[in-house]
């Protein structure tokens, strides 16, 4: 009897309290519908309150670049909040400079939508979408570069400007427990329907490139988002001087094909820098284009061709080769894609020959 009484009393008490907590949770954790005003009313979203700004926006198909998936460890998802973001949280502080705090920048993965909120984001983010693609082909291009053909889901299309990039989300593998997100330029032409190509060089020890090179197989699913970036074909400058190294060939290939396809009246010279012949790829492809289209010139250059290689092209550092061929900046625009070292060196050479900052576009990685 005593035992029963004890059990019943405790149970009744506990249930009553549980009920109270549940009611409080329903009343207090319910923020109702909140509105997100983007760029001074250019878009107004209605969302269910209580979630983070990042996930609220991604549910509405607006993708803020984020690599860590909302754990406040990458600091990429910065958004300017004009009103309604509340105070800056301790989790955000390490990622915001004093300047950014003054401008109202916040990490969108930490800000919770609890009332109507006003934010400002770059317009181009509106066209960014997420795709679940399927790997259709993997081609070994050189000893450390592979090309991936990715098929978009049925009826989906990606609209991008030649030269822009997408972000690939890797899956956890081996000792890597967290998915990471890395940027790769699109190598295919914007008009290609239902699929796209990216070129990935294996970076020794790279988390995402190792995943792409060693774990990803034909038929696997690959999540990507895009398009991103302000490296794309501009209307200024009639003649295009394009310089690339390694996997930096990707956006240049897209731009060249785009110009040819759209029949634009632009002169193009493509300098491709490599060390030996085994670092070259797409050589026949570009030589073929050179033969077919009079306004395209392809200049591959090797800095240290191996003695046994029968190389009949340019020899020397890419900077020297560019300097020999590009004598002036008259009505030209330069497009550079490659390692920061190569790009900086080439920019110096171009500037010496009269190029100004507004004539040079580049994508460093």
């Amino acid at each position: 009897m005593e035992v029963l009484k004890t059990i019943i009393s405790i149970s009744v008490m506990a249930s009553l309290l549980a009920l109270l907590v549940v009611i409080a949770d329903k009343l207090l954790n319910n923020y109702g519908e909140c509105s997100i005003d983007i760029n001074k009313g250019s878009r107004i979203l209605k969302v269910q309150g209580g979630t983070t700004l990042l996930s609220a926006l991604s549910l509405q198909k607006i993708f803020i670049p984020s690599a860590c998936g909302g754990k406040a460890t990458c600091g990429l998802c910065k958004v300017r909040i004009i009103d309604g973001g509340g105070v800056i949280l301790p989790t955000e502080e390490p990622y915001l400079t004093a300047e950014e705090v003054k401008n109202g920048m916040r990490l969108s993965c930490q800000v919770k939508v609890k009332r109507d909120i006003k934010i400002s984001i770059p317009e181009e983010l509106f066209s960014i979408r997420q795709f679940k693609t399927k790997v259709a082909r993997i081609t070994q291009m050189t000893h450390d570069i592979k090309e991936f053909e990715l098929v978009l889901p049925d009826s989906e299309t990606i609209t991008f400007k030649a030269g822009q990039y997408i972000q690939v989300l890797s899956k956890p593998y081996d000792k890597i427990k967290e998915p990471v997100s890395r940027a790769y330029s699109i190598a295919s032409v914007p008009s290609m329907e239902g699929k796209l190509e990216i070129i990935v060089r294996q970076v020794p020890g790279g988390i995402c490139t190792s995943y792409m090179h060693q774990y990803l197989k034909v038929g696997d699913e690959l999540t990507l988002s895009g398009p991103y970036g302000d490296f794309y074909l501009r209307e200024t400058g009639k003649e295009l001087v394009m310089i690339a190294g390694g996997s930096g060939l990707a956006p240049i290939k897209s731009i060249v094909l785009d110009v040819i396809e759209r029949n634009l009246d632009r002169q193009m010279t493509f300098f491709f820098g490599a060390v030996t012949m085994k670092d070259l790829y797409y050589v026949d492809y570009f030589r073929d284009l050179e033969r077919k289209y009079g306004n395209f010139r392809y200049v591959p250059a090797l800095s240290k061709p191996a003695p046994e290689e029968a190389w009949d092209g340019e020899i020397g550092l890419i900077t020297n080769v560019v300097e020999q061929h590009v004598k002036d900046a008259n009505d030209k625009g330069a497009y550079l894609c490659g390692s920061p070292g190569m790009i900086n060196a080439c920019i110096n050479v171009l500037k010496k020959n009269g190029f100004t900052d507004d004539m040079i576009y580049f994508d460093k990685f």
Partner: protein
Amino acid sequence: MEASPVISPFVIFFASIFTSNMILSNFLGMCSYISVSNEYKTASGLGKAVTLVMIFTTAANYAAYRFFILPLGLDYLRFIIFILIIAASVQIIELVMDRYFQELHLKLGIFLPLITVNCAILGISLFMIIRNYNFLQSMLFSAGSGLGWWLAISVLAAIREKMAKTRLPKGLEGPGITFIITGIMALAFIGFSGIFSIQ
């Protein structure tokens, strides 16, 4: 117990702030007192939270004791029931804070749930039964104890903030010097004991 005259609730109120301060004379609730007293603003916030939780849980526990535990003769269950009530109250208060006082909620962080096991809070409910307080006495006792706790942690935090740049012997940094300051504060508070006493 029955023979002793009823102590005025107001005496209890002031005594529990000064002479019978929960921290400085009963040494209850030391855990958060030591760990959250680096910064005056946060300490004061925690003090407010503890005061709020104390008043709230004492009222709830008093009601539970009078109308549930005593009539059913469940005196032997009072610990578990008190703790259940305290836990639920803290959870509800946390929800309220998350909604209306977000900055304080984030500052308190892990310490708010820790209030659940702050012994000062369970202490109040148990003292109120041991000392046979009526409702008014219990409420003023809890309010006084809460304010006393708030006062003590605020004073300590203010002192520690002042001392932040002081060069201390290595072994005394952090908790060490905090205990010494607490001891000196306790001595100072004993000075009040001639005025009124409840024990």
